[in-house]
Each structure stands twice: as C-alpha cells, then as structure tokens.
C-alpha cells in the first residue's frame, strides 16, 4: 500500500502540490486526471523523489519514502519505475543497453560502466522486449525508433527493474492514437498479469475511463475527486477541466462552434 499523507510541494512562491493525501492498495490501476498544471506530474515525481516534498510524508508498507537517501533511495526508485512522456531514453545507445538501465541497482558499478552486463540480465532484457513485441529492435539505436517503439522500450526498462509500482507520467501524450492504445494495453497487461500497481497521469478522459480502476482528479495542486471511473459524471469532468473539457472528453467540437456566433454577437 502506497500512502501519501498531506504531501505539499512549493517552488519558490507557487504551490504545485498542496496537501495531497491518498492511499493506493497494491495492484490498483489508478488514473490521475486534471488539466495541465494541476500538479499531476509533480505528484508522481514526489513519489519517486525526483522532486523533494516541501512537507508531508510518503510511505510504502513499512518504508518511510520521504526519509530515504543514498542506496536505499536508489533501491526505492528501482521499486517504483517511471515512464515519461518523452520516453527519456539514451538516444545514442542501443535498445538493449537502454533496457538494461533498469538493472543498474543490481549491477556493480564497474560492470555497468563498461557495459559488461551479466548474461541473465541480458536475457531478462530480451525477454521483456519480446513481451512487448520489439525484440527485433534490440540492436537498433534508440533515437532511430518511432515514438511508440521508444515508449515500449521505456516500459521494458521499467519492467526489468522488477518494480512494485509503475509511475507513468503522461505516457501517451506524445503518441498517435494507435500507438497510445498499444502502450496503454501494455500498461494494463503489466497491471493484470504481474499485479503491479500503476499510477498513470492521463490527459484524455476517454483513456482514463477505459483503463483505470480508480480516478484521482486534481485541480490547482489539490485532490478534488477520488472515486470509481463510473462516478465521474459529465458535470464533475467539466468542473475538473473547465474550458478543456470538450477536448479531453473526445467529443466533436461542433456544438461549441455553433454557439460561437451567438457568443460573439452577445
């Protein structure tokens, strides 16, 4: 169980995340929704401590995540693998080496520095690539891959970390619909087959409704909605997203256009 207790992060004067509390049981697929700048990314980055909380406590089981440092912090980051919007691969390295970044905490420094990966680690990385249907790309340079392929490599990197949690920060925001589906399906498979907890920031409400067990809505750095996807009524969604509502709910904007002339002449 991942527990966030009154977690706050302020950058200088502005508060990005304000008093967020939630409990995430193991194995849940949680979608974090809200408009851009609502504090979704920061919340995820607070969990793996890429960003330091200003205040509050994050715990996982008996582990006090907020107090970790050094090797313990690195091992925690291994246990909560992150998937980024922009994939964050190493473009000039090949796909296999990129996936093997997920084994860094298991590998002595001299070995990884010389890229002398262990045989079973390589096998594990290849198996992960195979699961996502891109084993044939193992020897390719990462920056020669399409966005969808790169994101799948990033998922493989996350998988070989043998994590308990996967933090996905807008994983499909830079992908076309087809690739978005492939990547979301992969995340769902990870969640169902390996029982990993998934925390996924999503901009699109349709995707959130399709894939998530539970939705957490954020606005202005606060949690304003936390319930089953079916409880997210249209009026709540409008409140969450404001002017962006039509865009994220995947509806035709025609209705809006029809209202424009009236609004302009009024």
């Amino acid at each position, binding site marked *: 169980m991942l527990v966030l207790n009154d977690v706050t992060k302020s950058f200088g004067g502005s508060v990005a995340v304000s008093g967020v509390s939630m409990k995430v049981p193991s194995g849940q697929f949680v979608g974090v929704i809200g408009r851009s700048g609502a504090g979704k990314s920061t919340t995820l980055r607070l969990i793996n401590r890429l960003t330091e909380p200003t205040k509050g406590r994050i715990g996982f089981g008996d582990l006090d995540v907020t107090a970790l440092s050094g090797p313990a912090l690195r091992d925690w*980051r291994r246990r909560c*693998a992150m998937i980024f919007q*922009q994939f964050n691969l*190493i473009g000039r390295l090949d796909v296999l080496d990129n996936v093997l*970044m997920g084994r860094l905490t298991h590998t002595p420094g001299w070995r990884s520095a010389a890229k002398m990966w262990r045989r079973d680690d390589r096998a594990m990385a290849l198996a992960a690539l195979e699961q996502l249907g891109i084993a044939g790309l193992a020897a390719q340079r990462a920056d*020669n891959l399409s966005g969808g392929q790169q994101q799948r490599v*990033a998922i493989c990197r996350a998988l070989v*970390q043998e994590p308990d949690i996967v933090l996905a920060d807008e994983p499909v925001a830079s992908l076309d619909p087809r690739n978005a589906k492939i990547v979301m399906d992969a995340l769902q498979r990870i969640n169902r087959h390996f029982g990993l907890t998934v925390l996924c920031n999503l901009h699109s409400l349709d995707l959130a409704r399709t894939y998530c067990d539970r939705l957490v809505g954020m606005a202005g750095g606060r949690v304003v909605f936390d319930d089953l996807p079916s409880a997210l009524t249209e009026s709540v969604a409008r409140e969450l997203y404001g002017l962006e509502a039509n865009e994220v709910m995947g509806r035709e904007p025609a209705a809006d256009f029809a209202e424009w002339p009236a609004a302009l002449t009024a």
Partner: protein
Amino acid sequence: MAAALAVYAAGLMMLDISPTRVWHGLGQLGTIAGLMLPPSAGGHFLLYLDALGQTLSIAFLGTMLAAGVALPFGFLAARNVVANRMVHVLARRSLDTVRSIDVLVWALIWINVVGLGPFAGVLAIASSDCGSLAKLMSEAIETADRKPVEGVLASGGGRLMTIRFGLVPQVLPIFASQLLYFFESNTRSATIIGIVGAGGIGLHLYEQMRVLEWQEVAFLILMVLATVAAIDVVSRRLRLAIIGRRGA
C-alpha cells in the same frame, strides 16, 4: 570615429610606420619571392620529413595531453554535474587563467623548464589548450539534454551512472569533434613554437630563413601547407563519421 582615426594615426607615428618603408619593403618582398622559386629541398627532404613528423607528433601528443587534463575539469566546471557553486566557479576561473596565456609564451616557459626540444612543445600545446578545451567541454555538458539523465536517475542509477549513461553518450561525439579541430589548429601552432626551439619543422624554417636559403624556406612552407590541408580533409571526414552515425 574621428577619435579612432586619431588613435590610429598616432599609433602609426609612434611605431615609426611610414608608406615609404612599406614601398621599399615591397621591392624586398618581390626579391624574396623571386628567390623562393623554384622551391627546393636542397637535398634535406628526409630530414625535413622527419621534422614534419615531429611537428605532427607534438600537435597530437599535446592535444591528447590537453584533453586528458581538460576532461575532469570540464565536468567539474559544468553546473549540471557539480552543484557546488564554489567548485565550479573556482574551476572556471583557473581555466580562464590558463587559457589567457598564449602558446608561444608557454613554449618559452617550458623550454626553460625541460630544455629545448619536442617535449617542451608538447607541454606548451597541452597547457595552452587544456583551458579552452575544458571550457568547451563544460559548455557541451551544460547544454546536454536533461531527459536521459532523469531516465537513468529514475531507474535507480547513482550520480556516476547518470554521468556515464545520461551525459557521456551525448557529449562524446561533441568532444571528439572538438579534439579533431584542436589537432588541426595545433599542427599550425606546433610549427610556430618550433621557431623558438620547441622542436619540429619550425626550427628548420627559422634556420633556413637566417641563412637566406629562400628556396628551402618555400619548400618547408609548402610542406606545412600540404599537411594542414590533408589533416583538414581527413578530420572533416572523421567528424562527419562520428556525428552522423544517426540513421545508419
């Protein structure tokens, strides 16, 4: 504008520069150019070739030594590697100091320290270049993309691993290209410092000028020109090969 012209005129007067001297000199220049034809090795071709080889090795070893010294300083002076302000301000300042002394001055200093010869030349090139190289390297590191670094960090990589995998693959081709450029320009520098006694072909160039063997001077200049041009071509190819592997 008027002030600049006045300063310029005053400078010409003070340094005793007059059109008549240039005019007389022009005749002299013509005579020398005439004496240079045809360029001839005067039977010393192998000796000169050997000296040219020495000049090239001075340039090569000097560049390599500079790179070796510059590498750690480049990382120390980069803001995204060393968070401590003191450390990188200190690193920056010391690099600037070293950089502001010309290679010829370094050559004269090292000749007094280790004696005449190519070793002094290597040290001179290394000391004058390590500052500039480290500065360029640190700038390449600072402009590197932050995303791969975060990728490695989020996978549980420590500080050294984020540098090894997040930064090094990004900056290595830039470093290589910088080194090639420095090697190119150091071939020219190595010729000059040879004149003050730091080994190589410059020494012969100076000697032949003193004994007024203009044909041999012309030959030596042509040798240097051909070499620099050849290095230019080769290093451009190498640079393209290193940078342009994408899409292969």
